[in-house]
């Protein structure tokens, strides 16, 4: 059974290839069966595999073939399965299958049904290769594969140029991180001589000691890739724009799986990061700053998907924070629960959008509680989990992160509580913006009538995800053997109490402001300072403008300068000189043969004079 692990990425891949080569000539039911079924089958294989694996949980390596051979460098096409991989595989195939099933209904009216599933299946295959890869090069193949699929899916409705621009932005911004990562791979290979993850980590441990420059540099470069892929500061600007793709795509790629690849990468190479504690602290700080920035921004959005996008950025910030403070399993745990509830939220949002004539603006919704009950309950449960209300899955995963942050003893003493405070502030904001969403969309007056109800293929996955979001946190992940042991948490009751009460406080605030409307935000936002602050937050701390001014405009300026071809001017000058000389010399070309002959004779005389001198 263990040997059949290669089936897991192969099934979606074959399905994708089949869908691509038939180029939309297959009947839709067949496409749906193939697209969703292949991922479902993969999920079944993962399940069976996982059951067998857990009986003897030893890391399992399967080498398929030698990929290429360049001198001593001979990377294998091989898979490495341990508990971490298993969790990732389960999330990818399980959540992926649910989203595929959901998509069969969501995308029903789209003319490019087959192309959609081809891309989606290809994405699942690439993502599986990413997490199952035995060496960093194969990981990088999957890494770029998911990037390409993300590009294709964000720009799925390519007829609108704005979508094309969004996909291009997503591709280019992540490319910045990928370049750093490729450099990191090269550095690791030149220094350690292998890219196979486990031997490489062993070699790193043997070669370097904690605090060396080289591991810090390598970790930094890998972090660059992770930051790009996981939409963390400063490379987070692409994710909100990536919402231009179909909503299930946002759910699968930009919430549940791909954007967490950075977290997976850091977790997978934690041995390297442990050698660079400063970089680890940087990871934590990046996570913290990102989660706060994104949370503030999410407060101000009115596009339902953009709220969720900023929320995603914020939650991945939590994961980074967890990784940074050494709470590895908690980070991965949060990755999994986040996959559940964020997929649930996106799919719920998709149901709302689907049933409301593709309406995105939350202020044009309202009162949908009774009209779209499925969506309402999904949202309610998803938001509860997101806000980490007690006994939801989000609570079980977020709480240990905060406690780990509080107890953090890193390279800067006493920074732990500050991280904790920041995390708590983020949690408060999370509760506020998530319930703001719930109250505005589902309560109050109805602004738009839904024209249909979600069918079973949408409702079914939603229900399943609701269950997972509620109870997914009750399982302990078997990650103990993968990561170094974490010190047992002994939080004081006070800390626990604060952690539990903060989200509730946030819900209360949201209830007061957006449901009871006891406190008016408009008074604050109408004042000049408030308004500008609102605008500022709404634009995501004006990061896009910043990058525009900092990078794009100088680049365009240089391009404009170069369009005048200053280098060519030099050559044109040479040409001009040549032409001048040419005109002068062509005057000597009289066309009279006798003169040519005579000048030749002059030359001959000179030649013989010189040559004959010595004789």
């Amino acid at each position, binding site marked *: 059974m263990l040997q059949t692990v290669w089936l897991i990425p192969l099934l979606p891949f074959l399905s994708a290839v089949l869908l691509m080569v038939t180029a939309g000539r297959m009947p839709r039911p067949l496409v749906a069966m193939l697209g969703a079924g292949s991922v479902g089958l993969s999920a079944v294989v993962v399940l069976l595999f996982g059951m067998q694996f857990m009986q003897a949980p030893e890391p399992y390596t399967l080498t398929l073939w030698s990929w290429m051979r360049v001198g001593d460098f001979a990377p294998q096409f091989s898979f490495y399965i341990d508990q971490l991989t298993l969790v990732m595989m389960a999330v990818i195939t399980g959540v992926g299958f649910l989203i595929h099933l959901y998509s069969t209904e969501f995308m029903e009216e789209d003319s490019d049904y087959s192309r959609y599933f081809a891309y989606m299946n290809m994405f699942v295959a690439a993502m599986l290769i990413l997490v199952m890869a035995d060496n960093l090069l194969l990981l990088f193949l999957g890494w770029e594969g998911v990037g390409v699929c993300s590009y294709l899916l964000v720009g799925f409705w390519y007829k609108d140029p704005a979508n094309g621009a969004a996909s291009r932005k997503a591709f280019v911004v992540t490319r910045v991180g990928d370049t750093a990562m490729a450099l990191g791979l090269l550095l690791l290979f030149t220094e350690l001589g292998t890219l196979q993850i486990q031997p490489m980590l062993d070699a790193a441990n043997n070669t370097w000691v904690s605090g060396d420059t080289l591991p810090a540099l390598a970790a930094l470069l890998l972090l660059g890739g992770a930051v790009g892929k996981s939409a963390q500061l400063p490379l987070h600007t692409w994710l909100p724009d990536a919402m231009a793709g179909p909503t299930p795509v946002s759910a699968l790629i930009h919430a549940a799986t791909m954007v967490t690849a950075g977290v997976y990468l850091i977790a997978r190479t934690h041995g390297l990061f442990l050698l660079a504690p400063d970089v680890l602290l940087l990871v934590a700080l990046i996570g913290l700053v990102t989660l706060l920035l994104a949370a503030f921004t999410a407060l101000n959005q009115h596009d339902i998907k953009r709220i969720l996008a900023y929320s995603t950025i914020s939650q991945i910030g939590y994961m980074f924070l967890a990784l940074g403070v050494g709470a590895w399993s908690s980070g991965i745990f949060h990755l999994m629960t986040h996959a559940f509830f964020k997929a649930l939220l996106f799919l719920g949002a998709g149901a709302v959008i689907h049933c409301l004539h593709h309406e995105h603006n939350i202020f044009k919704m309202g009162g949908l509680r009774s009209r779209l009950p499925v969506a309402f309950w999904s949202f309610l449960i998803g938001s509860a989990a997101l806000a980490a209300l007690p006994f939801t899955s989000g609570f079980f995963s977020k709480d240990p992160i905060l406690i780990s942050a509080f107890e953090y003893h890193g390279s800067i003493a006493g920074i732990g509580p500050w991280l904790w405070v920041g995390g708590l502030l983020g949690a408060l904001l999370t509760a506020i913006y998530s319930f703001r969403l719930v109250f505005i969309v589902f309560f109050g007056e109805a602004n738009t009538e839904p024209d249909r109800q979600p069918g079973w293929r949408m409702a079914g996955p939603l229900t399943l995800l609701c269950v997972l979001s509620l109870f997914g946190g009750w399982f302990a992940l078997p990650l103990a053997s993968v990561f170094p042991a974490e010190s047992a948490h002994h939080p004081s009751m006070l800390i626990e109490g604060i952690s539990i009460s903060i989200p509730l406080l946030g819900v209360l605030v949201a209830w007061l402001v957006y449901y009871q409307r006891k406190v008016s935000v408009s008074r604050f936002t109408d004042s000049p300072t408030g308004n500008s602050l609102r605008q500022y937050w709404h634009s995501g701390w004006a990061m896009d403008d910043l990058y525009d001014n900092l990078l794009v405009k100088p680049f365009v300026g240089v391009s404009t300068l170069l369009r005048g071809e200053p280098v060519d001017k030099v050559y044109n000058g040479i040409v001009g000189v040549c032409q001048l000389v040419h005109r002068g010399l062509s005057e000597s070309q009289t066309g009279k043969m006798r003169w040519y002959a*005579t000048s030749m*004779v*002059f030359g*001959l*005389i000179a030649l*013989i*004079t010189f040559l*004959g001198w010595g*004789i």
Partner: protein
Amino acid sequence: MELVLFYISSAVALFATVFALTRSNAAHALIYLIVSLLAVAVIFFLLGAPFAAALEIVIYAGAIMVLFVFVIMMLNLGEEGEERERQRMHPAVWIGPALLSAILLVEMIIVLSKMSDQQTGALITAKQVGISLFGPYVLAVEIASMLLLAGLVGAYHVGRRFRLSEPDDQSAVVSGDDKQGGD
């Protein structure tokens, strides 16, 4: 006796050449040139290169010069062309080239006079030449044959009588003729 013959034929060749290049009538010039070539053939014979002498007569005097006569006959320049040539022949025209040539000659003689006093006179038969031609020089023979073929094709093409009215053919030439029509 033979040495005297050499000097005589050298003088003949020289004077015939000078006359050939200073005549105004092309036909007369050619006769002088042929005489010059025959004199050079005699020199070849005296030097001990009878084969070269025969070739000089057969090919140079017998074939190449015939082509000249041929062309002169085809052009049929007539009296006025001759008159024009005569007018061009005043000292101002030839004094400069003659001076230049004289300088060159003096230089060459100075160079030659410093050479070792080698003597000619070895007889080289046609057989030796042939063996040399088709031995070490066989590539040169092939190249020469290519050159002659190129000359044949080139002469055929260039000498063809283009019809000037042909539209695809030399509209530029027609305009050129208009320009030059004055003379």
